[in-house]
C-alpha cells in the first residue's frame, strides 16, 4: 500500500489549487485522485467571473487575495507559460430604488473601507463603459476596475501542472470508494485503483461531497443545483472584451453578464436554480420558454438584444449550502480530515485563496484568512454567512 503525507480527493479548480499550495508550502508527498479528469467536472462549466464584490466580508478578503493570483498568474505558479485566460474588463453592478439598494451601498462601502478601488458611476459614465446597456432605472452603480473574468479550466490545469512540477502525483479516472479509519483518525482512502494511506486527507469533492458524508457518518449540507447559461448574439450591439462584466440587481433573475468570445453576450440568472436528486454534471434540458423569459429580462437592460439570436446554451452545476457559502476546515471530532465544499456558484473566483488556506490548515499552519466563519457547525449554531442580497451566488 502506497503512503502519501497528503491526499486530495477531487481535481477540480479547488482541489488542484490545494495541491499546488500544499507543494508550494513545502509538502513533500501529495496525491490527488479524481473520478474523471482534471477540471472536467463542475469547473469546466464555470462562467469564470472574477470580482471582489461580496456582501460577506471574509469573502471579500479571499476574493482580493485570489484576484492577486489571477492578475499575476504566471508569477503566482512560477511558470512563464501559464495563463488563466484573464480578461481584465472590470465589473459593474447596479441596483434600482428598492430592496437591493441598501445592501449594494453597504457592500461598496465595505469594499472601499478595505482599500479596494471601487468607483461610483453616474448613468452617463456607466453608459460610456457599457454603451450597449441603458441605466434609466439605476439608483446606484458601482464599478471595480480590478475585476473581469478568466477561464476556470485553464486555472485548474495551470495549478495541476504547477503541482506536478513540484512532485504532486495525480491519478485521474480513479474513484474513491471509502475511507480507511483508525478510531477518530482518517488514515487512508480506498479507491478503484487500490488503497492508499495518508497523514492527512483533504476533500474537495464539490457536488460529490455527500459520498464523504456517508463514509464519515456526518451529515454535510450540500445539494447539487443546476443553472442555465445562454450565449446571445446581437450584431447591432456586440458585447466586446473592453466592456465590463455586469450584474443587474434590478432584474428578477439578478442576471449577470459578460462578453463571450469578444462579441457575444454570456448571460445567466444569479438566483436559485434547479435542485438535482443526485450529483450529475451532464447537460440539462433548456426550454425555449426559459430562453424567451431570460431574453425578455435581457432586453429590458440591453434594448438591442430584443432581436438577439441564441448562439448556444448550456448548464452548469453548483454545490449549494443553506447559506450559499462554503464549508471550510475540519469536520466534528474527526482527525486528519479537512473539507472544502459548498462553493455555491462562487468557488472559482475564490479558488487560489481557498486552496491556500485549506493547504495551510492541513499543514497545521496559521491560515491567511480565518476558517472559523466557514465552520460546519455554523449550521447548528445558527451563525450563518447569509449575504445581504439573500440566497444566490453574489453572497
Amino acid at each position, binding site marked *: 500500500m502506497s503512503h502519501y503525507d497528503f491526499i486530495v480527493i477531487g481535481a477540480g479548480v479547488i482541489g488542484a489549487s490545494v495541491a499546488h499550495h500544499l507543494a508550494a508550502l513545502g509538502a513533500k508527498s501529495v496525491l490527488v485522485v479524481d473520478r474523471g479528469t482534471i477540471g472536467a467536472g463542475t469547473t469546466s462549466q464555470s462562467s469564470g467571473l472574477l470580482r471582489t464584490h461580496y456582501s460577506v466580508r471574509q469573502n471579500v478578503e479571499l476574493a482580493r487575495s485570489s484576484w492577486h493570483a489571477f492578475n499575476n498568474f504566471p508569477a503566482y505558479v512560477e511558470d512563464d507559460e501559464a495563463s488563466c485566460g484573464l480578461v481584465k474588463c472590470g465589473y459593474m453592478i447596479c441596483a434600482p430604488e428598492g430592496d437591493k439598494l441598501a445592501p449594494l451601498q453597504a457592500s461598496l462601502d465595505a469594499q472601499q473601507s478595505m482599500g479596494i478601488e471601487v468607483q461610483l458611476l453616474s448613468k452617463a459614465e456607466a453608459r460610456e463603459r457599457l454603451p450597449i446597456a441603458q441605466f434609466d432605472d439605476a439608483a446606484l452603480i458601482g464599478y471595480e476596475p480590478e475585476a473581469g473574468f478568466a477561464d476556470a479550466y485553464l486555472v485548474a490545469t495551470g495549478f495541476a501542472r504547477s503541482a506536478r512540477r513540484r512532485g504532486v502525483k495525480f491519478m485521474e479516472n480513479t474513484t474513491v470508494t471509502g475511507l480507511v479509519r483508525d478510531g477518530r483518525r482518517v488514515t487512508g482512502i480506498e479507491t478503484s485503483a487500490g488503497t492508499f494511506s495518508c497523514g492527512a486527507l483533504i476533500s474537495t469533492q464539490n457536488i460529490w461531497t455527500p459520498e464523504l458524508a456517508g463514509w464519515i457518518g456526518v451529515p454535510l449540507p450540500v445539494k447539487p443545483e443546476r443553472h442555465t447559461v445562454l450565449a446571445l448574439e446581437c450584431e447591432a450591439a456586440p458585447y466586446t472584451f473592453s466592456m465590463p462584466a455586469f450584474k443587474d440587481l434590478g432584474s428578477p433573475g439578478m442576471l449577470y453578464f459578460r462578453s463571450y468570445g469578444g462579441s457575444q453576450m454570456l448571460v445567466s440568472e444569479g438566483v436559485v436554480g434547479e435542485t438535482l436528486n443526485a450529483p450529475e454534471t451532464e447537460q*440539462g434540458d433548456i426550454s425555449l420558454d426559459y430562453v424567451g423569459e431570460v431574453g425578455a429580462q435581457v432586453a429590458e437592460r440591453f434594448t438591442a438584444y430584443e*432581436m438577439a439570436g441564441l448562439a448556444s446554451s448550456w448548464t452548469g452545476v453548483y454545490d449549494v449550502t443553506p447559506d450559499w457559502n462554503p464549508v471550510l476546515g475540519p469536520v466534528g471530532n474527526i482527525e486528519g480530515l479537512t473539507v472544502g465544499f459548498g462553493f455555491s456558484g462562487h468557488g472559482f473566483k475564490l479558488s487560489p485563496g481557498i486552496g491556500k488556506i485549506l493547504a495551510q490548515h492541513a499543514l497545521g499552519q496559521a491560515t491567511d484568512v480565518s476558517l472559523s466563519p466557514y465552520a460546519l457547525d455554523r449550521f447548528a449554531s445558527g451563525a450563518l454567512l447569509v449575504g445581504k442580497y439573500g440566497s444566490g451566488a453574489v453572497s
Partner: protein
Amino acid sequence: MKILVPVKRVVDANVRVRIGSAGSVDTAGLKMSLNPFDECAVEQALRLREAGVASSVTVLTCGLPVCQDVLRTALAMGADNAVLIDTANATPDSLGIARLLHAFMTADADAYGLVLCGKQAIDDDIGGVAAMLAGLLSWPQALNASAIEAAGLGWLVTCGDDAGTATWRLAGPAVLSADLRLAEPRRVTLPSIVKAKQKPLRTLDAATFNVALGTQMRIVEMAEPAVRQPGIKVADTAALLDAIGSKRLFQNVGA
C-alpha cells in the same frame, strides 16, 4: 408547393449518454434537441420557401406530447406550422414511422410536393425513414443530400456516398434526406421564440391512422463502449516502426 419536414427529438449531441440501471439509455432531465440532421432539413426547406420555390414548410414529429418542444424550435426557426402525431404507448420503428407519415400525407388536406428528412437521427443512427417513405409513396428518393436545386418540375440533388458524390435528377414529388453539409441551420432569435407560440401546432392521435406500430426490432444487448486502453511509450523511431509493424496497425489501409 408545400414541404413536409419530419423531425425527431433526440438527446443533445453534447450530452454523453450512459446506460441506466434499467439497461437502457436514461434521458430524464438531460438536454434534448432537434436532431441535427433534421435541423439542416428544416433550414433547407426554409431557404426553398424564401427563394419562392415552396409556399410553406410543415414540420412533423411522431412521439409523446413532450416532443412538441422540438416542433417549437423548428417553428422559431421559421417553419409555418407543425404537427405532432401522438404515439402514446407505442414505440414504432423506422417502418412504423414511415407508415404513419404515409398515412398522414394520404389523409391530410394539404398536398406536399417534397418531403425533406434528416439523413438519420443521432440516437439510433438507422436512417431508414426517408427511403421507406419513398417506397410507400412510390416517389423518387435521393439520400445524404449535400446540395438541392429546383429543376423544372423536379429536383437536382447532389448526394454523398462511399465513392464520392453523385448528382441525381428527380422528376416530380420526391423524398430527400439532408446531410449536415446541406445547409447551416440559422439561429433562433428571441422575437421568433415569441412568434412561434402563435403558430399552428396540430396534435393528431396515431391510433386514428390505423397503422401497425408494433416494432419488428429487438434490442439484444446494450453496452458502454469498451474503455480505451492507455498507449505505450517506445524508446526511439526504430522501436516505433517495430511497434507499428508488429501490431499491424495499418493493415486495413487501401482495403
